[in-house]
Structures are given as C-alpha cells and as structure tokens.
C-alpha cells in the first residue's frame, strides 16, 4: 500500500544479478582446485577481503532490521550496532591471526588442527550447519518479503530467484565468486548509505515532512466535553466510553460513512482525541487497514516531529544541517512515536497504533525497547546476556571465520579485519542517521518497520528508492552466498572428507563442494518458502547465541589454555549447543510463539548467553582435566612450524 513497483529497481537488480553471474562464470574457469573453491586460492588482497567481510556480515538484519528498529525504538536499535561492532574487536585481537594460522578451509579445521578428532569434526560441522541455517532462513524469507511489494511477484518467486542465483554463484566458483559478490555488495552498501545520509542531512528536519513531494498526512486532533460530546459535529460516536474500545482508552467515530478510531486523552475540560491508525483482522480472515482494503492506501506512513527545537528555539524546519546538529536538534525536540494496543471485539481483532509524543532525549538513550529503567534483576540479566551474545557471537560465526582462509598471510588476515571494522563501524554510524531520518520523515510503515530504509530513500524519489531496493537484494545475495559456502564446506570437507574419511582427490573435493552447495541451496529455497509469513528474524539472534556458546569457548580455550583436549573441545561445543538451544526453546519469546503466556515459561529471560557460555567453558575445563592422559598437545598459540 505504501510501496511503489519500480521498473528501475527491477532493472538494477537484473543488472546486478547478470553482473555477478558473469563474474562467477569467469572465475569458474580459474577455480579447479580445492584451495581455489573453498578458500579462493588464499590470495585475495586484504583490502578486498576487508570490504568482503563487510559485505558478508552486513546482512538484511543489519541493513533493514537495525534501521527499522532505530526508526521505531530509537537508541535501543542502535545498541545492536554497538554490540555487533564490539564483536569485531574480539575477532581482531584474539581470533584473526590464529584462525589463519591453524585452519585450511573451514572453522572446524582450526578447532581440529592439533587433534584429528572425529568428535570435534562431527560436532563442529553440526554447529556450523545449525548456525548457518538459522542465519539462512531469515535471509531467504527476507528475499521473498522484498520481492512482493517491490516487484509485484509472489513470495516463492523471490525466494527461488535468490536461491538459484546464489547457488549458481557458489557452485561455479565457490569462495572466489562469493568474495567478489560480497566485495561489490559491501562497497555499494557503504557508498549508497553514505549518499542517503547526506541527502537526509541536506534536507534537514521539519515538522511537516514531505514524501517525494507528497504532503505528510495531517493527523487530526478533536476535542470533546466530559460526556464525549464532540466540538466537531460532523463526527458521530459509534463506540464510546463504555464500549470495549473505551475501556482500552479509545473511541470509534464515524463521518461520511467512514469509521475511525481515536485515542482518548483526559483534559481539564473533557477529552482530547488523537487520530490513530488501525488494522483489523476480521473473523473471516479479511484484513482491513484503517477500515479499508490495503489497495485503497488508507494506512498512512508515519513519523514526524511534534515540536522542533534548535538551540532552545522552536522552529518549523532547519534546512541543511550537520550530523552533530542533526542529533542535538532531535535531542531537544519532541518526536511522535507510535504505541500499539490490541482490542478484540465481535467482528475480529483490531490492532491500534496510537501517537506517543516523546522527548528526543529519551529516544536517544536506551529504554524504549529494552527495559532498563526500574528493571527487575531478571530484566537486567536478560539485557546483559543479549549484549554478551552480540559481543561474543561475531568471532564465532563460521561464515565469517572462513574469510580468514582467503588471504595469503596472518598480517593480511589482521589488516582485512581492520578494514572490516572501519567499514562496518562507519556503516553502523550511518544506521543511526538513517533510522532517525526515517523516524522523522513520515515514511515508516507501522506494519513492517524493516522497510524503513528503502522507504526513507523513496521520500527522495523513485531513483534512490530503486537503488536502495536493488541493494537490499544484493545484501541478501552477498550474505546467503557466504552462508552456503560455509555450509557446503561443513558437509563436503568436514563431514565427507574428514569425518567419514572418504579419500577424495582434489577434483572430487571440488565436485563434492559444488554438489553440497546445490543441496544446501535447494534446502534454503524450501525453508524460505515454508517459513513464508513468519517473523523469523529472531533466528539471527539464535545464530549469535549458539555461535557464541558452542564455538567461541572452544576457539578461545584451544588458543589460550595448553591443557585443552579433543574431548574437552567436543564437550564444550555439545554443551554450548544444547544449553543455548534448550534455554531458547523454553524462553518467554518462544512460549509466546507456542501460543502460551510468556509468564508461564519455565525461565523468564530470552537471551541464554550469560548461562550457556560459562557452561561451555566449564564443560571444556572439566572434561579436559579429566582426559589429560588421553592426549598430550602442544600450546596452540605456538608458531606454526611450516
């Protein structure tokens, strides 16, 4: 209803797809060895690898999800940016060079480098596959979600397009083509996001944002006396104070045959009524938006400043503004955020979105999404646990770690991580401006805040929207290709070659990798279609929690504790996997998804990292101490003897 199907967006996407496919087929001719397929020959330049890291890491969750969260929840959305970037510090200072030194094609190689243990090979491969699939599903579902409004194609077509293109990219030239796809995507993401933020700052802030020339919907305020007799007599009350709406703080009015819902605010003289937006799901399954079918476009985009204050002076518009002035003006101003209420009645369930004017100083600090003010010990625990998972997860994501095998030296691994920190850190700075820009530019679709960044671009015209939309597809392509490389490596290299001990020639290893990529691609397409309509973005959180719990303790102890044994590593991965997944499955969030009350869940926190990470460390220490006589290994941080 808010979207525009843009031939330019479709054209740009097709151009990008043809470009990356052409590149993949070109590189395929040079990718005949296992080294070439799994590690791009190990000769990628560190600068290219660093940007490719950014392209690999900045998934749809980063680009669309964080911008959307900031647009609706302010600073709390940016907390994810801070946590994700901090995770790269762990990768640089502790993991980058040893991973390059110890591994060959997969993350399992590094863990198993000193042991040749079947248990490690199996458990690390399972962990890689689980983490990659958790990451993969939201990307594939996201591809379908993007395709529907932007190209007018069904969900399954979007999933199939992305699945087939990515499978072709990976199956033709493996890590070589994946690297360049991620490099182009990473570079484009940085350039286009910078341009978008520049345009937001040049336009400045306004209390009456325009959306590509179209004026912002003017939300009306009505007044009534204490008996709810309205000053504007053209409106008629059809569900008043005693109705189910009235009990929830709303009333339903009618004018010219059209119904509307209003939020009640008590005043000294009666009531002030603020216009709301609402979506109704009728008992027969029909969905109405502000009382009308979606195609009538009655569900307006939102997001505006109620009182714009700059240096203590109230104004209507700022004109072009610098980045720090932009943030300080927002801090001083009052911005209209949107709360949600659910009202069931005889016709169905109505979701009401009501205005919540909020001081900017409260939006630009934590607290709108995370409960930090007057929080209970369990809420504190949950917040700390989430921030721990973000901090520890990055350095344990298999599809990120395998990028260390594509560069020629440890110094190159280090330098490429620094380039990644610069690129990703800069992008995360931009997310604050894109998110806050969307919050105040009248572009937010309350039904799906993930589209905030593309819709912010649309407020500058279709051209920028087309670029951002095609970039969103490219974002999915880049991340999914990395995930499929990691998964196919886990199957072909870790399980078939190492765990099952199939004696494969170099040529057969490449073929096994390509067949695995096709299989994983087919599974990804299937899962992307099966999960249609489900909000599966929480699976990215699972991926981080599982990676941080199952993989990071094993990596760190292998590097820094000389008594680490193979059984200790395998036990750590197992305990990390089982405990993190187990805790997630009995969490309040999951209870809600099972259709039960979150308060009835056996545990009252959603993020397991603060329990599962220490458990995985403890398992490794205990089992390693109990199995010292089994294996006698050297210290893993000793220099390689190559």
């Amino acid at each position, binding site marked *: 209803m808010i979207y525009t199907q843009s031939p330019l967006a479709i054209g740009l996407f097709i151009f990008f797809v043809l470009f990356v496919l052409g590149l993949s087929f070109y590189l395929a001719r040079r990718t005949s060895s296992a*080294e070439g397929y*799994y590690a791009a*020959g*190990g000769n990628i330049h560190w600068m290219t690898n660093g940007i490719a890291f950014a392209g690999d890491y900045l998934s749809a969750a980063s680009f669309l999800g964080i911008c959307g969260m900031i647009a609706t929840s302010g*600073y709390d959305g*940016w907390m994810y*940016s*801070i946590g994700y970037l*901090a995770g*790269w*510090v*762990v990768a*640089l*200072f*502790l993991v980058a*060079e*040893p991973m*390059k030194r*110890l*591994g*060959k*094609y997969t993350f399992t*190689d590094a863990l198993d*480098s000193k042991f*040749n243990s079947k248990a490690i090979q199996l458990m690390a491969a399972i962990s890689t596959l689980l983490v990659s699939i958790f990451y993969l599903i939201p990307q594939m579902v996201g591809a379908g979600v993007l395709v529907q409004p932007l190209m007018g194609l069904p969900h399954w077509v979007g999933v199939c397009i992305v699945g087939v293109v990515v499978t072709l990219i990976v199956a033709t030239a493996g890590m070589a083509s994946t690297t360049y796809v991620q490099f182009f995507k990473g570079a484009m993401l940085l350039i286009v996001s910078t341009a978008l933020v520049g345009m937001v700052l040049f336009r400045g802030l306004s209390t009456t944002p325009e959306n590509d020339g179209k004026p912002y919907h003017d939300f009306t305020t009505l007044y009534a006396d204490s008996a709810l007799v309205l000053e504007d007599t053209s409106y008629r009350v059809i569900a008043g104070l005693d109705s189910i709406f009235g009990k929830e703080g709303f009333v339903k009015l009618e004018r010219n045959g059209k119904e509307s819902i209003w939020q009640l605010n008590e005043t000294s003289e009666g009531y002030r009524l603020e216009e709301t937006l609402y979506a109704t799901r009728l008992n027969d399954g029909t969905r109405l938006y502000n009382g009308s079918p979606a195609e009538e476009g009655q569900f307006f985009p939102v997001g505006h400043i109620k009182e714009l204050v700059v240096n203590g002076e109230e104004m209507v518009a700022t004109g072009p503004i610098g980045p*720090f*002035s932009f943030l*300080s003006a927002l*801090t001083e101003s009052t911005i209209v955020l949107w709360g949600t209420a659910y009202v069931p009645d005889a016709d169905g369930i109505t979701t009401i979105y009501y205005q919540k004017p909020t001081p900017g*100083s409260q939006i*630009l*600090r*934590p*607290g709108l999404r*995370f409960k*930090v003010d007057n929080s209970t010990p369990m809420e*504190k625990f949950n*917040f*700390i646990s989430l*921030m721990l998972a973000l901090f520890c997860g990055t350095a344990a994501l298999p599809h990120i770690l395998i990028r260390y095998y594509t560069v020629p*030296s440890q*110094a190159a691994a*280090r330098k490429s*991580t*620094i380039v990644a*920190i*610069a690129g990703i*850190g800069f992008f*995360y700075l931009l997310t*604050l401006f894109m998110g806050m820009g969307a919050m105040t530019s009248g572009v937010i679709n309350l039904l799906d805040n993930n589209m905030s960044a593309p819709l912010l671009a649309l407020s500058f015209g279709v051209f920028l929207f087309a670029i951002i939309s095609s970039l969103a597809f490219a974002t999915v392509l880049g991340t999914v290709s990395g995930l499929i490389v990691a998964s196919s490596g886990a199957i072909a*290299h870790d399980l078939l070659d*190492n765990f099952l001990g199939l004696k494969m020639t170099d040529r057969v290893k490449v073929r096994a990798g390509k067949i695995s990529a096709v299989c994983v691609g087919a599974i990804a397409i299937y899962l992307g279609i099966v999960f249609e309509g489900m909000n599966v973005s929480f699976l990215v959180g699972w991926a981080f929690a599982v990676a941080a719990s199952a993989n990071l303790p094993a990596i760190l102890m292998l*590097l*820094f504790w000389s008594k680490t044994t193979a059984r200790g590593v395998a036990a750590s991965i197992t305990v990390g996997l089982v405990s993190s997944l187990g805790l997630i499955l009995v969490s309040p969030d999951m209870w809600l998804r099972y259709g039960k009350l979150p308060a009835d869940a056996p545990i009252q926190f959603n993020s397991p990292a603060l329990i599962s990470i220490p458990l995985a460390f403890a398992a490794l220490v205990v089992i390693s101490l109990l199995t010292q006589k089994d294996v006698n290994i050297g210290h893993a*941080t*000793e*220099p*390689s*003897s*190559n």
Partner: protein
Amino acid sequence: MGHGPAVKLGKDDAASFKTSLGVKMFFGYTIFYVIFIALNVYAPKSMETIIFGQTAAVIWGFFLLGLALIMAVIYNHFCTQAEKRYNS
C-alpha cells in the same frame, strides 16, 4: 586429514608478541564495553545527560565505535613493527 593452511605460511616469530598484545588490547576495550553496559543497567538515567548537545548514550556509542577503530590501527602498527623486528 585436510588440516593446515590453504597457503604456505612463513614462520612467524612475532606470534607470541602479537598474541600477548592482542589479549591486553582485548581487555582494554572490554573494560569500556562493560562500563557502558553497567551504566545502562544500573544508572540508565545517566545516559540521558546532555553533553555538548548530545545525550551521554550517543557520546558512548560514538566513543565505542571510534575506539574500536583506533585500537585496531594501534594494534596493527605494533604488530607490523614486531613482524619486521622478529621476522627479518
């Protein structure tokens, strides 16, 4: 068994120095990250304090993002020097 680097790596006599430096810098950054989390959890109102026109939360965010890059560049500088010194 398919282990070992994909490309032939030279001997790195600077590895111990780099590992030690990396651990120190990791703890250095972690201290700031922990303080940031602790302030959010135990003194959330302090994050609303206005400093140079910005909330303390925004200043902290810029600081942590910037600190990561600055420490990364410093780390690389000392590692590069160590590689020249030990591996020449």
